[in-house]
């Protein structure tokens, strides 16, 4: 018997041992779970505007511009969130496909492929390229499988190999759909007000949220891969996590955390004279800050 057969036979025996399989599974899943929780904690810090200054100013800009326009920022944020969720998570069959396509194309972009919409190329670091390679391997596999099952479910006769050949084309179109949600939100704002500052700050806020959400999923894939560097295994776990609503819950959690800061930060003007002046300038300029007072 050749040496490889010795190894093979040994592993066949292991694979038949259900008790052993459960133990291995527990070790792997616990390890991944711990790592993912640690990653989640780090990401959570980035959702705190006190830590993430860029987010802080994005939120403040949105708060200021919507209030100046007489629009309740919390209400508008809710409406934008609804548009996002309806488009991205509204169709349960296609939701995962949208997301996988986006992750796949973002990975390809890091690997030097042009953006399918803008044609722009990105510069990525070696580490980013390595991560992107893993993400494209994992999401590419899952995307092909998801598309194959979807087409079969609607009676279209296509093989997985045929999908694999044109995977970039499918993904490019679907990637556009994910990006297009921000344009939809922009269209909604335009339908409510001609205020370009509000349009820009609203789409900036939702783009920031979108970017943080996608980065979180990418970070999670990389964390899983660092603990279990087998693309097929990570793809299996990711697929399962997607089915049990991880993506949706992740987005909702992030959306809610940021929502906690919407509508805050605007301070009322202290006196009548100030109100008149600021009222006059509010349409053109930024409301000046008022002091925090310590009095006897």
């Amino acid at each position, binding site marked *: 018997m050749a040496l490889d057969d010795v190894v093979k036979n040994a592993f066949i025996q292991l694979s038949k041992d259900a008790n052993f399989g459960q133990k291995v599974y527990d070790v792997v899943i616990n390890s991944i779970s711990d790592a993912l929780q640690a990653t989640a904690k780090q990401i959570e810090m980035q959702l705190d505007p006190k830590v993430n200054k860029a987010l802080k100013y994005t939120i403040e800009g949105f708060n200021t511009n919507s209030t100046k326009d007489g629009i309740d920022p919390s209400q508008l944020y809710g409406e934008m969130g609804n548009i996002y969720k309806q488009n991205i998570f509204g169709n349960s069959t296609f939701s995962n496909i949208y997301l996988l396509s986006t992750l796949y194309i973002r990975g390809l972009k890091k690997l030097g492929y042009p953006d399918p919409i803008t044609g722009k190329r990105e510069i990525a670091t070696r580490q980013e390229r390595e991560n992107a390679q893993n993400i494209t391997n994992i999401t590419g596999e899952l995307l092909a499988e998801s598309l194959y099952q979807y087409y079969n479910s609607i009676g279209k006769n296509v093989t997985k190999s045929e999908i694999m050949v044109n995977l970039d084309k499918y993904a490019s179109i679907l990637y556009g759909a994910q990006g297009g949600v921000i344009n939809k939100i922009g269209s909604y704002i335009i339908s409510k007000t001609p205020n370009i500052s509000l349009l820009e700050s609203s789409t900036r806020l939702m783009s920031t949220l979108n970017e943080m959400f996608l980065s979180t999923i990418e970070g999670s894939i990389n964390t899983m891969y660092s603990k279990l560097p087998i693309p097929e295994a990570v793809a299996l776990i990711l697929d399962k996590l997607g089915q049990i609503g991880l993506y949706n819950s992740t987005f909702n959690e992030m959306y809610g955390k940021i929502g906690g800061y919407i509508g805050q930060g605007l301070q009322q003007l202290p006196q009548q004279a100030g109100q008149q002046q600021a009222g006059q300038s509010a349409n053109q300029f930024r409301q000046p800050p008022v002091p925090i007072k*310590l009095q*006897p």
Partner: protein
Amino acid sequence: MKIVVLADHRWNSGAKTYTISATLSFLKIYELLKSRLKDLEIKLYVTTFNGSGGVDYHEVDFDELYKLYKEGKIKEILELAIEQNYHNKSKKIGLDDLLTGLSSSDFKFISSAGFGIFDRNITKENLDRILSEKRNFVVMVHSDLDGNLLMDLWNIINRNELKNIKEETKRKIYNLFEKRIHKGYLDDEDQKELIGLAKYLFFENNEEARELREKYGWLVEAVEKELYILDKLKYGIVMFPTNVVRDSNERYAEKVTGSKFRKAIVLDEPMFMISLWKNYKDEIKAYKDYYVNLYKEDKRIKLIYNGRIHPEKGINDLIKLYEDLLKEGKDVMLIIITPDMREGSEEYEKLKEIINKYKRGEVHIYSEQMGNSLYVYPLHLIGFLEAMGELKNTTYINAAYIESYGLATLEALIFGKLPIIYRDISGLRELKERGILINELSFKTYEDLYNLVKKVIGEIESGRFNINKYINEEKRKELIDLVDPERVAEIYAEIIYNYIKENYNVNLENQKVQESNVNL
């Protein structure tokens, strides 16, 4: 021809204000040099802290910034810089990209000598790549590095966390600190003593040194890296805001590295506020009117403090001063403009306690940490300072122990035309010697500060206050010209152009003429 600007945006301090101003100057530099240098390209890299304590690197779309500049959108450029660290016009890059970008450039401008400090990615090997013997770089050194080290040691012993520190060591640090305050700088003997003290604490194997290293390892690490950078600066061009900072650093560098700077330049720092002030007069007037309305009914005398909440900025002296004034029955208002005061902080609580104890006075706080900064949108600050100047019952106090240049102080002078009471140290002393700050309002000790403030208060109360006595208007106007980013850009452009002309051995003007002829 590729020029790279490395902008350190990690600290909310004068260094960041300078960096943003210098970046604005580079937009003008591009305009000035693009016709003189073939295929000129400027790359702008920005460093920021990320949420996990590490450092992130970003490449800013310089072309986009230049487009905004050509459209006269200075405010938009500064909003991007101040509020987002250029987030919307940049992409995150890795260390490799940063190092490749820097090392492959023909010339680089580094906005702060502290760029590699508190950044574990920037190793000595990486520093070798950035500050190479090709001599093709300018590095701005904002402050006297010996003073920074002394201040760090002074802060450490004042925290009372070192159980084993000997009284003799403390005494040495306090003595050096007193000398520095008295003279405004450390002389050669003081520097030698400081270096000896640092060597002792950083390397000796005894209880007090070991404890310091164990608790303040970051200082040892930072100083080691700072010295490594200092040694590398001998290859390039080093820029300082004042002669006192240059002199102090030159002597210090020679003692700790054994090498001298090859080329040192002293130049006023650009102030982006000037660009805003020139371009947005209507908007500033609206804010000025707003703050005049806010404060005009309150006839109390106002004292302004603008700076970080830190002992080196003299915050403790200021709080003591305020208490002493209230104790004496003076019902004055204190206005604090700062990036970092927080509700519940020691200083905040102390001020609250003082106000409640004496049942008079009022403190107004504008703090980035509390969400009402005047700096996030700097037109607010300009309007505020103009308003305070117009009220003619306001005095600005700078009680800092270290001040390499004093940007915030100069803002108060330029925009507010406020009387500036200041400590006679380092950069501020030089501004005094240049006639920009008035000798009569300088102080060295707390007693001097107290007496000066009382004198000015007395003048305001009695109606004898005459601002012209405390402002040298001619020098103020001269200063406005000197710190204008557009004017500073002309000087920087010449420095860069001359370097390239000398070192790349090309006859640039002729090259341009030949190209013009071909086009004809």
